[in-house]
């Protein structure tokens, strides 16, 4: 038996895998256009506010918070695609032959997802700053005061939904199915929670659409944090863990 060189026996570092996963997000037409649309839509939110919002609303925090909406909606789709496209395009065959430690590949996808949400938050902040500068001469409030707690909370908001996308993608391993379920299931649950009386308490704790809204208000309370934690466990952690188990066991062909 020949001794294998360290280049072969040592696992591929997570950092390198993350670089590969980030690159995969943008190197196909679908991924690239999704990113372009997010940038344009984020810029679009500032334009909308500059044109039509009340002057008192034309402040940095308002631009910043509204600017988060496009990425909060669309980045999860990128998260879904980063997993499901490997199966629909069957690239998983190459991915897992190059990195047999499947958990590391999924880990890199999660890290890439978090990094892209940080980038989206930063982009929203930069575009909000530009909009605030423009708003001044146009008669807007142009206030720069942002509650510091909102920065971390905004980051979390982005990351939670991207990870939920990755979780649904990993669990379902099908692009159309994951996208439909990702958008439809929480909405159906929200509607049920508001209509059916007996579900209203459960919905307060388990409706991520509802509990995550607290992230857009400064200084969340302990109760809000616990409700967010419980609903995120149900909608993000459980699908992600179940999905990882599925992928680790699955036969790739």
């Amino acid at each position, binding site marked *: *038996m*020949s001794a*294998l*060189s360290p*280049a*072969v*026996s*040592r*696992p*591929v570092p997570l950092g*390198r*895998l993350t*670089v*590969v996963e980030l*690159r*995969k997000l943008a*190197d*196909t*037409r*679908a991924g690239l256009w999704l990113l372009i649309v997010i940038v344009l839509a984020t810029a679009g939110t500032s334009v909308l506010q500059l044109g039509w919002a009340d002057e008192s609303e034309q402040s940095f925090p308002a631009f910043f918070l509204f600017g988060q909406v496009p990425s909060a909606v669309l980045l999860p789709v990128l998260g879904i695609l980063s997993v499901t*496209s490997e199966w629909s*395009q*069957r*690239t*998983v*065959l*190459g991915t*897992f*032959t*190059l*990195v*047999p*430690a499947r958990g590391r590949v999924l880990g890199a996808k999660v890290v890439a997802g978090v990094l892209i949400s940080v980038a989206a938050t930063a982009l929203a902040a930069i575009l909000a700053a530009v909009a605030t500068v423009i708003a001044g001469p146009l008669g807007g409030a142009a206030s720069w005061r942002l509650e510091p707690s909102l920065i971390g909370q905004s980051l979390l908001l982005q990351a939670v939904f991207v990870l939920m996308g990755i979780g649904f993608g990993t669990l379902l391993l099908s692009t159309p199915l994951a996208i439909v379920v990702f958008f439809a299931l929480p909405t159906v649950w929200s509607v049920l929670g508001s209509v059916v009386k007996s579900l209203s308490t459960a919905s307060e704790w388990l409706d991520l659409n509802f509990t995550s809204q607290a992230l857009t208000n400064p200084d969340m309370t302990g109760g809000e944090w616990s409700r967010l934690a419980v609903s995120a466990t149900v909608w993000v952690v459980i699908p992600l863990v179940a999905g990882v188990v599925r992928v680790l066991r699955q*036969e*790739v*062909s």
Partner: protein
Amino acid sequence: MIEVEHLTKRYGRHLAVDDVSFTCEPGTVTGFLGPNGAGKSTTMRMICGLATPTSGTATVSGVEYRRLGNPGRQIGVLLDASAQHAGRTGRETLALAAVTMGLDTARVPERLRQVGLEGAAARRRVRAYSLGMRQRLGLAYAMIGDPAVLILDEPANGLDPEGIHWMRGLLRGFADRGGTVLLSSHLLREVEVVADRLVMIGGGRVLMQGDKAQLLGAAGTLVRAADPVALDALLDRMGVTGSRCADGGVLVPAGPQSIGQAAAESGVVLLELRAAGSGGLEEMFLRLTAKSELEEVSR
């Protein structure tokens, strides 16, 4: 070096791979032959850690595939040339593999040139590639980490005759430099030129394996007589059962010497008498696989 020992894979009641064992030595090309559905791909997927064997083991360079941290630098794998993202360019596909393995992407253009995908073809998206171009890209993908072992599933699919010739040269050169190649096909003719060893499987089991020269020699003798009825009677008297080939000859599991002798003694006029070689091997292969498929059906 690839070592496969008693590899078995069961899906429910169906035994896809049944106690398969073989070894691929450095410096050789092993042709892995069998009809579609014989279990070739399943065996290869188990070697590469993509499917878990029901029992048995497979190692590459002495190590179980899944325990290799960065296998691309040791083993090049091409299991399905169509399993590439249609929206990625050929160049990007190779670049991703290089980055994953920790290699400089500067080698990518050179590797694309080696497989004939330079210039515009490299910048095109895989969607626009023909199957032959995908096979070429797949070979470049498998070889970009300068591996010592290659595992290729039906790499000749979709290649034109010139492409097949080119690939044979590539694999022969790779083995002559000390590499190990495992190459599957459902066509004997496709691999017999380049292979040193053959492993034939059908219905999930190894039907026959050995050195190519040895197998070709063991394939029997081709006999053709002016009077086929007289030849049949002669073979009957000798106690050997021949099998009729498409061209009217008879493939006999005996040496040319004994048949020629018997024919001369009984006055049967022979038109042809020679070692059957690859034609005989193919007959034998078809017969073996047909039999194993029949068993499969009757089970």
